[in-house]
């Protein structure tokens, strides 16, 4: 009789048990909802960024096309026939051998054409992209571990 009373004294009230179950369930639901929301937010941002990248790629394509068109247009405007026509309009004519004078200019070198001078190191761009944009999470962890917290 005494034993039964003790057990009874320590048993929680049913409503408290129900509340605990409900609380635990709600906690799980809220946790799942938070994870889902986080996932949704991250994936939405990733999708938006993906689309932005595609859009920027399209812009690059369009810009390249415009550049190519402009280069072709410059080619047309500076073609031999166009330049000859302009020279004639300005009353120029081809020089004759007897009209030429030659001078020695010390340390003068004929400059390289612009297309050759314009050659730049294209890998520069890749060097300035920070690792955050190219590294995976695992690679980042690996790097941190290898560095041992040192910057």
């Amino acid at each position: 009789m005494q034993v039964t009373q003790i057990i009874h004294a320590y048993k929680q009230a049913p409503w408290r048990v129900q509340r605990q179950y409900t609380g635990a369930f709600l906690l799980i639901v809220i946790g799942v909802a938070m994870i889902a929301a986080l996932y949704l937010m991250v994936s939405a941002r990733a999708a938006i960024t993906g689309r932005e990248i595609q859009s920027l790629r399209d812009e690059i394509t369009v810009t390249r096309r415009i550049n190519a068109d402009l280069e072709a247009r410059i080619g047309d405007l500076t073609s031999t026939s166009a330049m000859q026509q302009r020279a004639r309009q300005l009353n120029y004519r081809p020089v004759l051998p007897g009209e030429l004078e030659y001078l020695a200019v010390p340390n003068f070198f004929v400059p390289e054409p612009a297309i050759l001078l314009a050659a730049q190191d294209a890998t520069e761009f890749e060097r300035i992209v920070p690792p955050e944009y190219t590294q995976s999470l695992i690679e980042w962890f690996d790097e941190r571990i290898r560095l041992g917290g040192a910057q």
Partner: protein
Amino acid sequence: MRQQYAIRSLFLIFCFALAGLGILAQMIRIQSSEQASVFLSQGDLYAGEFRTFYPERGLIYDRNGYLLAGNRTVYEVGVNLSDLNDPESVAYNLSVYLGLTYDEVYNRLTDFPDTWRYVVIQDYVDADVVASLQELIQQMKNVGDRRLNGIAFHPHFQRSYPEDALASNVLGFVARDGRGYFGIEEKYNDLLAGNPVQVWVPSDPNKATEIPRVPNGTDLALTINRDLQARVESILDDSLVQYGAANGAIVVMDPRNGEILAMATTPRMDLNNYNAYFSLYDNGSQYNRVVNMAYEPGSVLKILTMAAAIDNGTVVPQTTFLDTGSIQIGGAVVWNWNRDSWGLQDMTGCLQHSLNVCMTWLSTQMGPSVFYGYMERFGLGRRTGIDLADEALGRLKTPGDSDWYIVDLGTNAFGQGVSVTAMQMLMASSAFANDGKMVTPHVLYSMLRDGHQYNVPSQYGGSPISAQTARTLNNMLANSLEAEASSALLPGYRVAGKTGTAQIPTDYGYDPSKTNASFIGWGPVDDPQFMIYIWLQQPTSSPWSSETAAPVFSKVAEQTVILLNIPPDNVRLALSSK
């Protein structure tokens, strides 16, 4: 009461479980049904698309950076059939703007297989036409008129040649299949075209992936000097008219490194209208006669014979030869070009008067093995390796060939019975202007890719003769031109060279009424900076090279020294002595 609630709860749970199981069963049934594959394929249609990204074809420049071949945007005009509202209006407007008939467009819009979602109406439409059409569509949309819905424009590149026909024989062209034909466009097609990349582009934003970088084709800078090329082409065209020649070719090369500075042949075509190819040329060898066509060069080849004889020690410049006007070899009689006897001549005289008899004597003195050994070392019968498509081989018959006879030893010595390309003659002769070393001719100056520049180094093609022989020949040829007051001479500059007049072989022997007139020359003799080859086919005003090709050489040389800034000899020597 509590039990009643429990029963209700159980009932609700059972209902929801049943509904869930029903949904699950239906999902499994649909997934495993016969129509599942159809649904999946329909879904795939809208899941995304494979897109091929073509790199921009590499540009081609001359050595001074002038654009010779570029790219411009053209459009494929089509109709998205699912968006089409009014086929009549679309057909009418497209027919007006694109120059097509109404029926042609209308039939394409209304008569198509069920699976089609898009039809192409016309490709390679100019940007101006598309801009006008787009403006019209926009104007109609602004007032709420949707009758032209569905018209779509897809831009892509088309090869563009701002210089039209200039250097067309060197450049070649790109057809609509995107492949290069002839010249540089064919030879370096893989470099210029780059590598297309095909990627799957999903419609689902979550699956959006980065499109891989598609690097442009490699840009090329050529050794061609555009201004010199234009002058040379102009001189060639004028010369064909002046001398009544059927066709011709002129090449200007830097003999020190093999760089081709200008290369002109006829006919030339406007590269922006490459369909003209079929009306201009009977076969591919006519596209660039300098490289693609071999011919019997005649007396220009005598310089190789004389060089071989001097280098071998068979003769020295002062060796005399009594010319009687004819010589017997292999049962045949060889005559001089005018059938005259020229009496006692030294070796310079043999070259100056272009004596066939003297050359035949030289080759017999050397013997077949020595003579043909030299000819092979000069590169005859072998491709030069120039970086242009479809180089011809030429033919040098040698002892042991089934069609070689003793008489060939004599006739080959003065350029008959042997076929070469103009480029082979230039390469062989570069040994005279370059202390005995031949250079490999090339047209590519530099490759430009990813910001890096790769220059093409000069290559030597062997040393068939010694430096001493080369200098001796230089002086002999310069003296012979001066002695005969050749029309090839260029005032102020000492040049060396040799004429060549060759009858044209036919199936019935040599045609006495038709000749190939050639001239090879270079200068300044003490420091050769240019080498020029002239070839006029069947000149009618005079059959002789001395009266046709030689003066053309002088004109080309004059323009060359101006454009390459080569001062007259006295000025150059005075400047260099300071």
